[in-house]
């Protein structure tokens, strides 16, 4: 489809350890459409961050390696680019927003210079022009008095302003794709809402596509158009937000939704899915969810369920998907 910005197919990242290399991101495929916010959800360790880092070819450890797949952006496969070309993608076509703005900004360089640095590296513009563009971006992300704030250091910003500054850095070169890895987890609720609103505004005004990584299904239902659910390094279900939240067909998705504390019931005990997520080195065969799945049977333990269509634009990887509302009714 022409409005697909990024098309990921069979992305596989392995960790090299003592034994044979093991896939911690295993055959991940998804499409990101122009102007869309795609949520990437899953328990801790499910491979969300590693997936996103693989897309800019900056894996978080020396023992990790991309073992296969493709990620086509603007007609080119990022995974096949040489080192020079991939640097043009980083910060150029893809901007990264990290969870912790305090540690991901250089503490001894002013915010403005960090933005201008990115602009100057990707486009051959003069120093003054880079400064002008950087101030413009600071204004767009809602930083008051941007001319003066250009010369401020990260520690002089509040947490929310710092996250805005990091979004400004990511936006510096007008990327097609923003990857936001838990951008609001470190922030308090009001600030979180402001940042979410900013990201939605940026999507509307710039048409940028966003991959939004989070644990928080509440946030997903606020800002995402589509959702991909990850478990044990695989995408187990992907579809429109309303197909996933409350109507998920994968037992893991269903469990995840059931575990979210209901709104307006703060005192309620939070349920969790029984059992532990799979650990590196001990990935179960067949469906990786089977040790924790109430519907698991012999097939699940041996055969990996393929990601198959379940209605328009809704894919599920499960041998025995949960019936959704319409099916129950009929």
């Amino acid at each position, binding site marked *: 489809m022409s409005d697909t910005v990024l098309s990921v197919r069979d992305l596989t990242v392995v960790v090299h350890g003592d034994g044979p290399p093991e896939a911690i991101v295993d055959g991940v495929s998804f499409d990101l459409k122009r102007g869309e916010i795609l949520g990437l959800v899953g328990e801790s360790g499910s491979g969300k961050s590693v997936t996103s880092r693989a897309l*800019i070819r*900056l894996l*978080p450890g020396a023992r990790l390696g991309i073992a296969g797949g493709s990620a086509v952006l603007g007609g080119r496969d990022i995974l096949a680019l040489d080192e020079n070309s991939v*640097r*043009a*993608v*980083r*910060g*150029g076509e893809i901007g*990264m927003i*990290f969870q*912790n703005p305090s*540690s*991901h*900004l*250089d*503490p*001894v*360089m002013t915010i403005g210079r*960090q933005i201008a*640095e*990115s602009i100057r*590296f*990707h486009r051959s513009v003069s120093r003054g022009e880079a400064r002008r563009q950087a101030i413009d971006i600071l204004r767009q992300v809602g930083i008051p008095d941007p001319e003066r704030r250009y010369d401020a*250091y990260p*520690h*002089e910003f509040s947490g929310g302003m710092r996250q805005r500054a*990091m979004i400004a*850095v990511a936006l*510096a070169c007008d990327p097609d794709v923003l990857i936001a890895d838990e951008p609001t987890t470190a922030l308090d609720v009001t600030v979180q809402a402001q940042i979410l609103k900013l990201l939605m505004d940026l999507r509307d005004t710039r048409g940028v596509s966003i991959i939004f990584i989070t644990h928080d299904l509440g946030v997903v239902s606020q800002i995402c158009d589509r959702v991909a659910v990850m478990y044990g390094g695989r995408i187990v279900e992907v579809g429109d937000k309303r197909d996933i939240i409350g109507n998920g067909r994968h037992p893991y998705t269903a469990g995840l939704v059931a575990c979210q504390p209901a709104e307006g019931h703060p005192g309620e005990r939070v349920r969790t899915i029984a059992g532990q997520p799979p650990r590196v080195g001990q990935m179960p065969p067949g469906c990786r969810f089977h040790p924790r799945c109430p519907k698991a049977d012999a097939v699940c333990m041996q055969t990996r369920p393929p990601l198959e269509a379940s209605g328009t634009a809704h894919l599920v990887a499960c041998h025995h998907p949960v019936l959704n509302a319409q099916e129950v009714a009929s």
Partner: protein
Amino acid sequence: MNRYRFVLYRPLQLLPVLVGISIITFVLIRSIPGDPVRVLLGPRSTPSAIERIREQFGLNEPLWVQYLYFVKNLFHGEMGRSILYKVDVLKLIVSRIEPTLVLVGGSVLLALAITIPLATIAARRRGSLADHVIRLVSTAGLGLPAFWLGIMLIIVFSVQLDLFPVSGYGRTFLDKLHHMVLPCLTAALALSAVLTRNLRASLLAELNSDQATAARARGLPENQVFWRHVMPNSLVPTINLLAINIGWLISGTVVLESVFAIPGMGQLLVRGIFTRDYMVVQGVAMCFALATVMVNFLADILTVTADPRVKL
């Protein structure tokens, strides 16, 4: 505290340190057995001659009166007359200050010129042969006394290779530089041993830091990530360590100037102690104390400049 107020007030805070040091050196030098007048007049001096000279230099006054005279003179920009050289101590110091300044300044610059490339190679090629060699040599360097290192350098570069003079201080500018290479190198190597290990560790931590990852995610090439983000952040702790070690270096000039026969303040101090030339010892000790305090003050300013987070 505001930066400008810091620049004004910090020296005032350091004043008590200087007063303390002046009292300690004043008392210490006078409590060593021996007498400058006997040294001056030799073994066959008459008691009356000794008495006359003691009177002349005010040595018969109570200690606290002598100290007050010393302080009073300081305010007039005088440090008293050297008993041995018979000139004003300040004049003596001024005539000896250049070699010592060159020695300290040259050593620091040379130490940085050695440390930054070595730590860079060690950190960026972590685990390589070069890294292992650099770590081994700098660990070994920590255990070597500076004077021994100096003598070894003299043997190799002066005696055997005949590249540099064995000792002394030249007359022309180039000649002086030529003379100061080996002494500076001696101190610089000793400093580098400490600094390289420290900088390498900081660089390694910063290379793996979130902010370096973020810089790479902006598309910066590894070289730019290193020089624009990793190195500036890593230098902050190294500057502090360097400042602490300049205190060591200033006292080390005493040894180095003896080994290399450099006519500087360290040498002046040693002679002053041997001849019980109280005024000289006091004066030089005060200068060293002042220099150490000033260097720490400068290092504070430098740290604040390099790291905007530092609260004063």
